[in-house]
Protein backbone atom coordinates (compact mmCIF):
# COMPACT_ATOMS: atom_id res chain seq x y z
CA UNK A 1 0.00 0.00 0.00
CA UNK A 2 1.39 3.41 -0.88
CA UNK A 3 2.15 5.61 2.11
CA UNK A 4 3.12 9.23 2.68
CA UNK A 5 5.03 10.59 5.65
CA UNK A 6 4.52 14.29 6.37
CA UNK A 7 7.26 15.68 8.55
CA UNK A 8 9.59 18.68 8.70
CA UNK A 9 12.56 17.04 10.35
CA UNK A 10 13.78 13.46 10.43
CA UNK A 11 16.01 12.51 13.35
CA UNK A 12 17.68 9.19 14.10
CA UNK A 13 16.66 7.29 17.22
CA UNK A 14 20.00 5.81 18.27
CA UNK A 15 22.07 8.70 16.89
CA UNK A 16 20.24 11.87 15.97
CA UNK A 17 22.41 12.58 12.93
CA UNK A 18 22.47 9.06 11.49
CA UNK A 19 19.61 7.42 9.61
CA UNK A 20 19.95 4.31 7.46
CA UNK A 21 18.13 3.93 4.16
CA UNK A 22 17.77 0.52 2.55
CA UNK A 23 19.67 0.38 -0.73
CA UNK A 24 18.34 -0.49 -4.16
CA UNK A 25 19.44 -4.12 -3.90
CA UNK A 26 17.46 -4.58 -0.67
CA UNK A 27 20.43 -6.18 1.08
CA UNK A 28 22.45 -3.27 2.44
CA UNK A 29 21.79 0.17 3.83
CA UNK A 30 23.30 3.56 3.15
CA UNK A 31 23.59 6.47 5.52
CA UNK A 32 21.06 9.15 4.62
CA UNK A 33 22.99 12.12 5.99
CA UNK A 34 26.37 11.10 4.58
CA UNK A 35 25.01 10.57 1.10
CA UNK A 36 23.24 13.89 0.72
CA UNK A 37 24.87 16.84 -1.00
CA UNK A 38 25.32 19.63 1.54
CA UNK A 39 26.06 22.49 -0.83
CA UNK A 40 25.56 23.05 -4.55
CA UNK A 41 25.75 26.02 -6.86
CA UNK A 42 25.10 26.94 -10.46
CA UNK A 43 26.68 30.31 -11.17
CA UNK A 44 27.26 32.73 -14.07
CA UNK A 45 30.65 34.48 -13.84
CA UNK A 46 30.14 36.39 -17.10
CA UNK A 47 26.77 38.09 -16.74
CA UNK A 48 26.97 40.17 -13.58
CA UNK A 49 27.96 37.25 -11.35
CA UNK A 50 24.57 35.68 -10.69
CA UNK A 51 23.33 32.48 -9.14
CA UNK A 52 21.32 30.31 -11.51
CA UNK A 53 20.30 28.20 -8.54
CA UNK A 54 21.85 27.14 -5.28
CA UNK A 55 21.34 25.13 -2.13
CA UNK A 56 22.89 26.30 1.15
CA UNK A 57 24.64 29.37 -0.28
CA UNK A 58 24.26 32.69 1.51
CA UNK A 59 26.46 34.81 -0.75
CA UNK A 60 29.40 34.85 -3.14
CA UNK A 61 32.63 36.80 -3.58
CA UNK A 62 34.24 37.58 -6.92
CA UNK A 63 37.82 36.45 -6.24
CA UNK A 64 39.18 37.49 -9.63
CA UNK A 65 38.88 36.28 -13.18
CA UNK A 66 37.47 32.78 -13.25
CA UNK A 67 37.46 32.50 -9.47
CA UNK A 68 34.35 32.69 -7.30
CA UNK A 69 34.05 31.98 -3.59
CA UNK A 70 30.74 30.74 -2.23
CA UNK A 71 29.78 31.24 1.41
CA UNK A 72 27.45 28.73 3.00
CA UNK A 73 24.36 29.34 5.10
CA UNK A 74 24.97 26.25 7.23
CA UNK A 75 28.66 25.48 7.68
CA UNK A 76 30.25 22.12 7.19
CA UNK A 77 31.89 20.54 10.23
CA UNK A 78 35.39 21.02 8.79
CA UNK A 79 37.21 21.44 5.49
CA UNK A 80 37.55 17.72 4.84
CA UNK A 81 34.57 17.49 2.51
CA UNK A 82 34.67 16.36 -1.13
CA UNK A 83 33.68 19.00 -3.68
CA UNK A 84 33.43 18.98 -7.47
CA UNK A 85 33.49 21.69 -10.11
CA UNK A 86 32.22 21.55 -13.68
CA UNK A 87 31.94 24.43 -16.12
CA UNK A 88 31.05 25.50 -19.62
CA UNK A 89 33.80 26.00 -22.19
CA UNK A 90 33.77 29.56 -23.54
CA UNK A 91 34.22 30.74 -27.12
CA UNK A 92 37.74 32.02 -26.46
CA UNK A 93 39.00 28.46 -26.15
CA UNK A 94 36.52 25.88 -27.31
CA UNK A 95 38.48 22.69 -26.92
CA UNK A 96 39.16 21.99 -23.27
CA UNK A 97 38.39 23.79 -20.07
CA UNK A 98 39.29 22.87 -16.52
CA UNK A 99 37.50 23.68 -13.35
CA UNK A 100 38.87 22.99 -9.95
CA UNK A 101 39.04 23.80 -6.32
CA UNK A 102 41.33 26.67 -5.46
CA UNK A 103 43.53 27.70 -2.62
CA UNK A 104 43.71 27.01 1.11
CA UNK A 105 41.61 29.96 2.20
CA UNK A 106 38.85 28.92 -0.13
CA UNK A 107 38.75 25.50 1.50
CA UNK A 108 37.88 26.84 4.93
CA UNK A 109 34.81 25.79 6.83
CA UNK A 110 32.38 28.17 5.24
CA UNK A 111 33.79 28.82 1.81
CA UNK A 112 34.22 26.92 -1.41
CA UNK A 113 35.93 28.38 -4.43
CA UNK A 114 35.39 27.39 -8.02
CA UNK A 115 38.15 28.19 -10.49
CA UNK A 116 37.82 27.97 -14.26
CA UNK A 117 40.80 27.75 -16.61
CA UNK A 118 41.06 27.71 -20.38
CA UNK A 119 44.33 27.20 -22.26
CA UNK A 120 46.25 27.66 -19.03
CA UNK A 121 44.71 31.01 -18.13
CA UNK A 122 41.91 31.95 -15.79
CA UNK A 123 38.71 32.70 -17.66
CA UNK A 124 35.18 33.66 -16.58
CA UNK A 125 32.54 31.20 -17.72
CA UNK A 126 28.79 31.54 -18.11
CA UNK A 127 28.08 28.28 -16.34
CA UNK A 128 30.09 26.95 -13.45
CA UNK A 129 28.63 24.35 -11.12
CA UNK A 130 29.84 23.06 -7.78
CA UNK A 131 28.58 20.33 -5.47
CA UNK A 132 29.97 19.26 -2.09
CA UNK A 133 29.54 16.19 0.11
CA UNK A 134 30.60 16.10 3.74
CA UNK A 135 29.48 16.48 7.34
CA UNK A 136 27.36 19.40 8.49
CA UNK A 137 28.51 21.18 11.64
Amino acid at each position, binding site marked *: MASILKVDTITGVTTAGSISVTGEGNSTTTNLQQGLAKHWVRFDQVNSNTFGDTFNSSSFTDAGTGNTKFTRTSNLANDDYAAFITSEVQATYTNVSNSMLAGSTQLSTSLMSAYH*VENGSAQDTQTITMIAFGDLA
Partner: protein
Amino acid sequence: MASELRVNTLKDAAGNNSIATSFVAGGSAKAWSNLDGTGTAAVIDSFNISGMTDNGTGDYTNSISSNLSNGNYVITIAYGNQTGSWAAQANGQLKYASTPAAGSYSLTTGNSVNGSLNDFDRIHSAIHGDLA
Protein backbone atom coordinates in the same frame (compact mmCIF):
# COMPACT_ATOMS: atom_id res chain seq x y z
CA MET B 1 15.46 1.43 20.44
CA ALA B 2 16.13 1.01 16.77
CA SER B 3 13.09 1.39 14.58
CA GLU B 4 12.21 0.99 10.92
CA LEU B 5 9.95 3.25 8.91
CA ARG B 6 8.46 1.97 5.66
CA VAL B 7 7.10 4.73 3.48
CA ASN B 8 6.83 5.54 -0.23
CA THR B 9 6.83 9.33 -0.11
CA LEU B 10 8.18 12.05 2.16
CA LYS B 11 6.53 15.46 2.52
CA ASP B 12 7.02 18.35 4.87
CA ALA B 13 4.44 18.87 7.60
CA ALA B 14 2.46 21.24 5.41
CA GLY B 15 2.16 18.55 2.76
CA ASN B 16 4.56 20.25 0.35
CA ASN B 17 7.98 19.40 -1.07
CA SER B 18 7.05 15.83 -1.84
CA ILE B 19 9.78 13.38 -2.72
CA ALA B 20 9.57 9.64 -3.28
CA THR B 21 11.85 7.63 -1.05
CA SER B 22 13.18 6.01 -4.22
CA PHE B 23 14.70 9.38 -5.11
CA VAL B 24 16.21 9.68 -1.65
CA ALA B 25 17.95 6.32 -2.02
CA GLY B 26 18.72 6.64 -5.72
CA GLY B 27 19.88 10.24 -5.56
CA SER B 28 22.19 9.93 -2.59
CA ALA B 29 25.92 9.53 -3.07
CA LYS B 30 26.84 5.97 -2.12
CA ALA B 31 30.47 6.80 -1.42
CA TRP B 32 32.80 9.78 -1.47
CA SER B 33 36.34 10.49 -0.41
CA ASN B 34 38.82 13.30 0.06
CA LEU B 35 42.40 12.07 -0.42
CA ASP B 36 45.76 13.70 0.21
CA GLY B 37 47.98 12.29 -2.53
CA THR B 38 51.16 14.01 -1.40
CA GLY B 39 53.84 12.35 0.72
CA THR B 40 52.35 9.27 2.30
CA ALA B 41 48.97 9.31 0.62
CA ALA B 42 46.06 9.26 3.07
CA VAL B 43 42.29 9.43 3.27
CA ILE B 44 41.35 12.77 4.84
CA ASP B 45 37.64 12.01 5.06
CA SER B 46 35.27 9.58 3.38
CA PHE B 47 31.93 7.84 3.35
CA ASN B 48 31.63 4.13 2.53
CA ILE B 49 35.32 3.90 1.61
CA SER B 50 37.23 1.12 3.39
CA GLY B 51 40.67 2.12 2.20
CA MET B 52 42.86 3.65 -0.49
CA THR B 53 45.82 2.16 -2.33
CA ASP B 54 48.57 4.46 -3.59
CA ASN B 55 49.60 2.89 -6.91
CA GLY B 56 52.26 5.50 -7.61
CA THR B 57 52.43 9.19 -8.45
CA GLY B 58 48.94 10.47 -9.25
CA ASP B 59 47.46 6.96 -9.28
CA TYR B 60 45.04 5.70 -6.62
CA THR B 61 42.48 2.96 -6.00
CA ASN B 62 39.59 3.39 -3.58
CA SER B 63 37.99 0.32 -2.01
CA ILE B 64 34.29 0.48 -1.18
CA SER B 65 32.93 -0.81 2.15
CA SER B 66 29.38 -1.72 1.09
CA ASN B 67 29.63 -2.74 -2.54
CA LEU B 68 27.60 -1.31 -5.37
CA SER B 69 25.49 -3.78 -7.37
CA ASN B 70 27.91 -3.55 -10.33
CA GLY B 71 30.59 -1.31 -11.84
CA ASN B 72 28.21 0.82 -13.87
CA TYR B 73 27.94 3.65 -11.35
CA VAL B 74 28.73 7.32 -11.98
CA ILE B 75 32.08 8.63 -10.76
CA THR B 76 32.88 12.30 -10.27
CA ILE B 77 36.46 13.43 -9.72
CA ALA B 78 38.00 16.80 -8.90
CA TYR B 79 41.27 17.91 -7.38
CA GLY B 80 43.67 20.71 -6.64
CA ASN B 81 46.31 21.88 -4.21
CA GLN B 82 45.51 23.94 -1.17
CA THR B 83 48.77 25.81 -1.03
CA GLY B 84 51.71 26.71 -3.25
CA SER B 85 51.55 26.14 -6.95
CA TRP B 86 48.80 24.07 -8.37
CA ALA B 87 48.65 22.93 -11.94
CA ALA B 88 47.08 25.47 -14.24
CA GLN B 89 45.45 22.61 -16.09
CA ALA B 90 44.49 19.71 -13.89
CA ASN B 91 42.12 16.99 -14.97
CA GLY B 92 40.64 14.27 -12.81
CA GLN B 93 40.01 11.07 -14.66
CA LEU B 94 39.38 7.38 -14.34
CA LYS B 95 42.63 5.49 -14.59
CA TYR B 96 43.55 4.43 -18.12
CA ALA B 97 42.50 0.85 -18.91
CA SER B 98 40.87 0.43 -15.53
CA THR B 99 37.31 -0.78 -15.12
CA PRO B 100 35.29 0.33 -12.10
CA ALA B 101 34.17 -2.67 -10.08
CA ALA B 102 31.39 -3.13 -7.55
CA GLY B 103 33.93 -2.84 -4.76
CA SER B 104 36.60 -0.47 -6.07
CA TYR B 105 37.57 2.16 -8.62
CA SER B 106 40.86 3.73 -9.72
CA LEU B 107 41.63 7.31 -10.63
CA THR B 108 44.58 9.34 -11.78
CA THR B 109 45.51 12.99 -11.36
CA GLY B 110 47.89 14.95 -13.53
CA ASN B 111 48.69 17.86 -15.78
CA SER B 112 47.13 17.91 -19.22
CA VAL B 113 49.73 20.39 -20.47
CA ASN B 114 52.63 17.96 -20.29
CA GLY B 115 50.71 14.73 -19.81
CA SER B 116 52.42 13.83 -16.56
CA LEU B 117 50.78 12.34 -13.50
CA ASN B 118 51.10 14.46 -10.38
CA ASP B 119 50.17 14.17 -6.72
CA PHE B 120 47.76 16.71 -5.25
CA ASP B 121 46.73 17.33 -1.66
CA ARG B 122 43.00 17.47 -2.34
CA ILE B 123 41.65 14.65 -4.49
CA HIS B 124 37.88 14.32 -4.35
CA SER B 125 35.72 11.56 -5.78
CA ALA B 126 32.08 10.56 -5.37
CA ILE B 127 29.96 7.79 -6.79
CA HIS B 128 26.26 7.53 -7.49
CA GLY B 129 24.61 4.21 -8.33
CA ASP B 130 22.76 1.25 -6.89
CA LEU B 131 23.93 -0.56 -3.77
CA ALA B 132 24.19 -4.34 -3.94
